[in-house]
C-alpha cells in the first residue's frame, strides 16, 4: 500500500507543468533557487490553484512576502517551509482525536454528503479497515433512493465479506438504519456504518430525511450517531464550504472525509472548511480500492502540497 504522501506526490508529478514547476522538487520556485517578485506571483497562482480560497492564499503569501522583505536571499525551499508552516498552523487540531471510536456498542458512523462524493465507496473502505483491525462491523444501506444503490453496496459487502443490512428500493431509509442498529447489536458488532443517499445541501426535504435517521437511531441509543461525517469530494472548489456549513446546521457534523485526492486536486477547500467549522478530518480517500483510505495527517498533507520531504 502506498502511503498518502507518496501517492499524493505521484499525483503531483503527473500534474500539469505549472504545478510541477511550482510545487515540484526541481527547478520550481520552491527549489534551491532564490525567490524573486515573479516567483511570488507564481506562488499566488499555485495557492489559488490548490483551491485554498482567498483567505488562506493571502495569509500564506503575506507571510512569505514578509520573510522575503527581511531576507532577500530567501530561497524557494525556505518559502515552501514558510508556506507549510502557515498551513500547519491553520490546520492545527484538524487530525482525528486519538481513540475517536469511543465506548458505545455499536459505535454508529453516518456518512453523508452530496451526490457522487464517495460515500458508498468510503463505507466499504471503512468496513474493511475495521474488519482488518478485528472489530465486528455492520453496514447499513440507507441509500434507498438512487438507482442500484443497494446493488452497489451489496457488491462491496460480498466482495469484502461484510455483514450488510439492506431493504428494497424506495424503502424508508430511517427504517433501514433502525434495523441495521439492531443487527449490529445482535452481532455484538463494535461499529455500525450507515451509507446514506447523496443529497444536495440545498434541499430541505432531504435534510429532514437525515434528521429522521438520527431520531430513529436515538430510539436505540440516545447518543447515536456517534460520528456524523461529511464525505467531501476533494476535486470540488469552494462550494464544499457551503456544503459543510449546511450539513452541519442540519445534522450536526463531527468530522470530514475528503475523497479523490489521488488525482491532481489539492483538496484545498478542506482548509476553508476547517477554518470555519473546526471539524477534524478523519480520513482521506486516495482511490477506488478498499485499501485506498488513509488517516489524515496535517504534516503529510502540507509537506506534499509544498513539495517537502516528510
Amino acid at each position, binding site marked *: 500500500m502506498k502511503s498518502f504522501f507518496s501517492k499524493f506526490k505521484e499525483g503531483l508529478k503527473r500534474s500539469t507543468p505549472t504545478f510541477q514547476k511550482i510545487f515540484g522538487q526541481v527547478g520550481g520556485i520552491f527549489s534551491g533557487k532564490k525567490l524573486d517578485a515573479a516567483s511570488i506571483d507564481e506562488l499566488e497562482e499555485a495557492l489559488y490553484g490548490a483551491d485554498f480560497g482567498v483567505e488562506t492564499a493571502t495569509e500564506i503569501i503575506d507571510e512569505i512576502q514578509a520573510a522575503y522583505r527581511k531576507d532577500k536571499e530567501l530561497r524557494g525551499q525556505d518559502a515552501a517551509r514558510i508556506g507549510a508552516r502557515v498551513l500547519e498552523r491553520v490546520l492545527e487540531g484538524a487530525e482525528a482525536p486519538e481513540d475517536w471510536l469511543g465506548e458505545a456498542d455499536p459505535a454508529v458512523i453516518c456518512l453523508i454528503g452530496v451526490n*457522487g462524493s464517495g460515500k458508498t465507496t468510503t463505507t466499504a473502505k471503512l468496513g474493511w479497515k475495521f474488519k482488518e483491525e478485528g472489530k465486528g462491523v455492520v453496514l447499513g444501506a440507507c441509500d434507498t*433512493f438512487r438507482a*442500484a444503490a443497494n446493488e452497489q*453496496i451489496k457488491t462491496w459487502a460480498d466482495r469484502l465479506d461484510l455483514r450488510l443490512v439492506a431493504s428494497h428500493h424506495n424503502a424508508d431509509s430511517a427504517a433501514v438504519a433502525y434495523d441495521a442498529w439492531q443487527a449490529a447489536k445482535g452481532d455484538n458488532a463494535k461499529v455500525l456504518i450507515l451509507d446514506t443517499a*447523496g443529497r444536495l445541501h440545498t434541499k430541505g426535504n432531504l435534510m429532514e430525511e437525515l434528521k429522521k435517521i438520527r431520531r430513529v437511531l436515538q430510539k436505540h441509543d440516545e447518543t447515536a450517531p456517534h460520528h456524523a461525517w461529511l464525505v467531501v469530494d476533494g476535486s470540488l472548489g*469552494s*462550494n464544499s464550504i*457551503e456544503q459543510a456549513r449546511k450539513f452541519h446546521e442540519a445534522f450536526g457534523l463531527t468530522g470530514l472525509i475528503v475523497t*479523490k485526492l489521488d*488525482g491532481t486536486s489539492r483538496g484545498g477547500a478542506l482548509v476553508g472548511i476547517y477554518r470555519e467549522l473546526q471539524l477534524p478530518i478523519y480520513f482521506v480517500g486516495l482511490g477506488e480500492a478498499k485499501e485506498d483510505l488513509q488517516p489524515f495527517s496535517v504534516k503529510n498533507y502540507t509537506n506534499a502540497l509544498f513539495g517537502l520531504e516528510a
Partner: protein
Amino acid sequence: MAAFLCVYLLGMLESLTDRMGQALRNLRGVGKLTEDNMAEALKEVRTALLSADVHFKVARQFVEDVRQAAMGQEVLKSVTPGQQIIKIINDELAKLLGEGTTGLADKKPLRIMMVGLHGSGKTTTSAKLAKRLMKDGYKPALIACDVYRPAAIDQLETLAKQIEVPCYTDRTSQDVPKIGRTGWDWAKEQERNLIIFDTAGRLQIDEDLIGEIKKLKDKIVPDEVLLVADSALGQEAVNVAKHFHEAVNLTGIVLTKLDGDARGGAALSMKAITGVPIKFMGTGEKTDDFDIFHPDRMAQRILGMGDVVSLVEKAQETIDEEEAERLAKKMQSNEFNLEDMLAQMRQVKKMGNLGGLMKMMPGMNGIEIGDREETQMRRTEAIILSMTPTERQTPRLLNASRRKRIADGSGVEVKDVNQLIKQFQQMQKMMKMMRGSKGKKMMKKMQSMGGMPGMGGGCGGLPGMGGGGLPRF
C-alpha cells in the same frame, strides 16, 4: 396641463442633453471608461470570479481582455462606470459561455460517448439524454461500458427500464472497446438510431484508463463525445477538461448538479481553456431534470452581481438613444408632430418614476412631480391615441367635429382636447425659439445656474407657458 408641459419639456431637454452629449456627461463626472474609473469594479469582479472557482489564470485573462476592449467606451448617463463595466463583463461572460451550439450532431443514427471524473453524473446523464432525445424522434439504446464501479451496470440498466429504453450489458467481459463495439451492433439490430455509451469515471491523469476510452472511441466512432462535469468542480476543472479534450476530442460539455448552489466558475474555466461548447445542464437526480445550457443565466450565477446587471440593463432599455436622437432632429427641422410627442412621452414614461427622473436631469432638481401629474400625462396620451395617424401628423386638420370625436373616444371633454392642441402649438413656438441663438443661451444659463430660472415653484410656475411665448428667456 402644466405638468404635461413640464413633462414634455423634460422630454425635450432629454433629447437636447443627449445631443449636447459629452459636455453634459462630464458635468455628471464621467463620460468614458478609463483604467482609473474601472479599476475598483474590476478588482471586485476578479474576486467574485475567484470565489466562484474560476481558474486563477482564466479569471485574470478574462478580466484583462474585457478591460482592454471596454476602454474608452461611453458610459450610460444613469449608471456609474463601475456598474457599466460589470454589465459588460456579464455580457462577455455570457457570450463566451454561449459560444458554439447547444445542439448535437444532426445525424441518425447518432452515437454519443460519455466521459468524465468519478461521480460526476455520467450514468444519470446518459439516461436523461436518451429520454430527452426520444422526444425528438430518436430511438435510443444505452450501452453499459463501466465495468469497474460496483453495480454500475445495474444502475444504467435500472435507469433504462425506468425510461423504457433497451440497454446492452455484458457482465462477463472487462474488454471495454469490445463491449462498446458489440453493443453498437446489437443496437443496430434493434433498429436503434441513438446509441449512448456510458463509461466509468476516471481521473484525467490515469494513463491506462484514458487509454481505454481512446480505444473505445476508435471502435465506436462516436459523433459526440460529451464531458460530464460537476458544476462545483474547483480549480482542477481546467486540467480535467484539457486532458479529456486532448485524449478524446470532446464535442460538448454537460454541467451537472446545477440544482445546488455552486457558483459554477468551472464552466468558464473549461470553456475558456478548451473552447468546447457547453451543451446541457443537469438540474436534479430525476431523469427529467435536464435542460439545454443557458449561458446568460450561468453568467449571472458565476458573477453573482445580478442587481447591478439588471440596473444597467434597465437604463439601456429605457434610454433609447437612437430614438431620442431621431426626435431631436425632428424638433430642429420643424417637422415635429403629435405622433412624435407621443413617442417622446412614452420614452419619458418608460424610464419609470417621473419624480426620480427629474432628479436625474441637470437643472431640474427640486421640481416635484407626483401622482396628479402622472394621471394628467396618461390623459394626454389617451387623447393623442384617439386621433388617427393622419391627424397626429398634421394637427391643423383637427376641426371641431374631429375634436368632438377625439374627446368622446378618450373620455375627456372637448376643452381638454382644445387645451392640448393649444399647448402643442405653444411648444412648436418654443422649439422654434430654442433653435435660435436665444435658446442656446438659455440652455447654457440653465447649466451654469444649476437650476431653471423661474421654475422654483414647480411646473405650474413656469412663466408664459400657459399663455404664449417664453418672455423671460
